[in-house]
């Protein structure tokens, strides 16, 4: 039997918009170290620019 390969328990997430943030949170909450990489000075992506969102009209922030 082939020897199991050593794997690294860390994941890099490239892009800190709503999708990247959710991926990072799910991974961190299941025991993986996450490097969240974002080119702009704040996470949030385009969603942070939205005023209100359907259907609850919640503030996107």
């Amino acid at each position, binding site marked *: 039997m082939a020897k*199991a390969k*050593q*794997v*690294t*328990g*860390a*994941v*890099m*997430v*490239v*892009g*800190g*918009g*709503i*999708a*990247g*943030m*959710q*991926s*990072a949170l*799910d*991974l*961190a*909450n*299941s*025991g*993986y*170290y996450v*490097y969240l990489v974002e080119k*702009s*000075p*704040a*996470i*949030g*992506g*385009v*969603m*942070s*620019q*939205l*005023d*209100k*969102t*359907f*259907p*609850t*009209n*919640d503030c996107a*922030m």
Partner: protein
Amino acid sequence: MDLDKCIACGACSDKCPKRIPNEYNEGLDKRKAAYVRYAQAVPLKYGIDAENCIYFQKGKCKACQKFCPTGAVNYEQQEEVRDIKVGSVIISAGFKPFDPTPYVQYSYANFPNVVTALEFERILAASGPWMGHLVRPSDEAEPKKIAWIQCVGSREVNTCDHPYCSAVCCMYAIKEAVIAKEHSHTDLDAAIFFMDMRTFGKDFERYYEGAQEDGVRFIRSRIHSISELEDRSLQIEYATEDGQARVETFDMVVLSQGLETAPETIELCQKLDINLSPGKFISTSCFEPVTTSRQGIYVCGALAGPKDIPLSVMEASAAACAAAGKLSSARGSLAQEQEFPEERPVAGDIPRVGVFVCSCGINIAGVVDVEAVAEYARTLPYVTFVGNNLFTCSQDTQDKMTEVIAEEGLNRVVVAACTPRTHEPLFQETLVNAGLNKYLFEMANIRNQDSWVHSGDPAAATEKAKDLIRMAVAKAALLAPLQEVQLEVTPGALIIGGGVSGMNAALNLAAQGYTSHLVERDNALGGNARSLRVTAQNQPIAPYLDELRERIEAEPLITVHLNTVIKEGEGFVGNFKTTLAGDSGEEVVEHGVTLICTGAGEYKPAEYLYGQDPRVMTHLEIDQAVLGGELDLSEVNKAVFIQCVGSRDPEHPYCSKVCCTHSVESALAIKEANPEAQVVILYRDIRTFGERELLYKEARSKGVLFVRYDLEHKPEVKATDDGLMVTVRDHVLDRDLLIEADLVGLATAIVSHKSNELAQMFKIPMDSDGWFLEAHQKLRPVDFATDGVFMAGLAHYPKPLEEAVAQAQAAVARAVTVLSSKEMMLPGTVAFIDQRKCVGCGVCWTVCPYQAITQDDKGLAVVNEALCKGCGTCVASCRSGAPNLRGFTNQGVMAQIMAL
């Protein structure tokens, strides 16, 4: 900027002399070169934009450094290159809103009152350039007439090579129109110019209908041109569906810009050797929707094809599941658990309350006299320490608070700042770090509920801040330490439903090392997919199902229960106990999480000769007949497909999302088998969203005819001597068309199984159409409000196969966040019953929305702390005062009221 030193006070930005267009507000106003992207930015740290900074460009200025109170400004910082070792990578680089500037036909660059949809979002936003006042850019006057133009940079190949539909613009345009009408002081005339209205998501169709009722005008048209009048209003020339030229004038025009992949992202993908789709999104297979062509690299969100927020969030969790799948042996090897000091006992001690008054930069201190408030707080009973901080939430202040709590021997803490909704967890952690029970904490919201709303009356705001703090201190003195309930987690899942979603959920759980019971009421796995021919990418589905079944059979961690139904369910997150009833009798399984993958059914119509003439078939029946060899598509000469059969009507007021693509696929398959065949699709709106639009385009180029009908003039199907005759009212010609057919395909709706029993057993809500209702439609699309229960597939809403697979992976990622913790802590703020006062009347267990209260053997009420969410309904409803809520006791609340 030294991030550890920056306290986000804003002094650097105030003093910075350089003003440049603010990209956060889409350039509609200015920001400084020293700036923070927006007030709620995470991390909330200022930065210097070196490209625009006067010091970096000309070597002089340094105003920010001079005025920074903490010495955080450091001009010597250099870019660092770091090598990082990871097990997998997720690319979620998102999209770039289409920029209409270079395209003459949109008249965007020269006319100030033609704005993009994202600019309009900023105009509507309270944090935007005009603080949410609806104005147009040229003269800042309120527009009375606004037009939205759809498909700007979408479904457009002539100028910008975007053959795809951007999938989100129809909905955001409707939302913007509805909200603009709400903001308007006059009766705003909002008109949306569109080709097909694509409101295919959950509750979208209702929103579209609601907007029509609210007076938003929807004009099916093609835009010819936009020109500017002398007063900077805009004249739109357009052609209606029947070919008539019309002209209308608007005060403002919003371009519903599409989504595209940024050039730098395309470059990154090329560097990483990841395949792109024709529309330049990352290409994925319907069977592995978050897996890129490069092993170990996964994708989610709009970079994997244009999509909305809920689907992006779903894919994000799915990508987390896929990325973790191969790493489970290294789970926990790098992530560290936080360690905390031992808790200091406070029982019997006299309360020593510390009050920390926050200035929040100028957010609070600009209105409230924080020094006077702090001085006042010192006079309150039990208060032994008062501090005032510029930003109580900054890391250095947290460290200082930890020291002060120890030095002053504080045993209760009040923070007078912002809202507990966002900041309570942070301050509670500070208490824990200082060895205090985290429930010995109370907040007074002197920002959101005081300085923000009373900014015009500083004196009154200062008095109100004193009142709020006095109330908080009164309650704090009565706070008791609370113990959190620790629960063991059963590390396995129950998956209800053995269709594509359930099968994928089981396999993905197994990949992460968790067992599951996969329950299917039918005698085989596969669900609706057994009747489907191909995916939207024309991949055959039957071999895929065979592969899934084989992998499940070979997987020791999965137990399949066929011909089995759920008889009884009890328990809560981490500890469910469910009774299954199958061929071999009943069996009780214990599981930590529950996944609802129960699917949906196909609507059986009572119109268009369905059931009376064998040549009239539903989509699934046609696919089944082809798969079974009973129908040879090369022998079909004249086919007609009728869309929206049972969808978007009063009985099912929603779009079934998959049927337009299905008809187009079937039409293409007929054309492929018999190029001479005449194929006509009768539709209301063609909803081939995303890159499915390319299929629609291909069908038209191959001669498939598309004829629109509306609900008032539905097509008719009659049997004649030589076949079938379909009559439809054509809108362009304004007369009836008679179409002969030897096959009529009905694009029938997907309908809910309406499993009320299941809903009750697992305490999960259902909407009026029978779809299970997620915890939050945007941000928690696969979770339920009930912890530990998740869903995937058609039980949530009609969706194509690739979305069902993604949702199954997402549900697994969410489930693993529960399963991977050996034990879980439940909040201490739960109800308890003083049984000496309880008479067993039953009011509390009737009103409890979480079914957390039951009767014990004496007939008295008892709270299951694992189910209780601390809502307090039982406390308010009891006539005897038997229930009380920990952390929000009657005594504490009364003390607050008496202090006012």
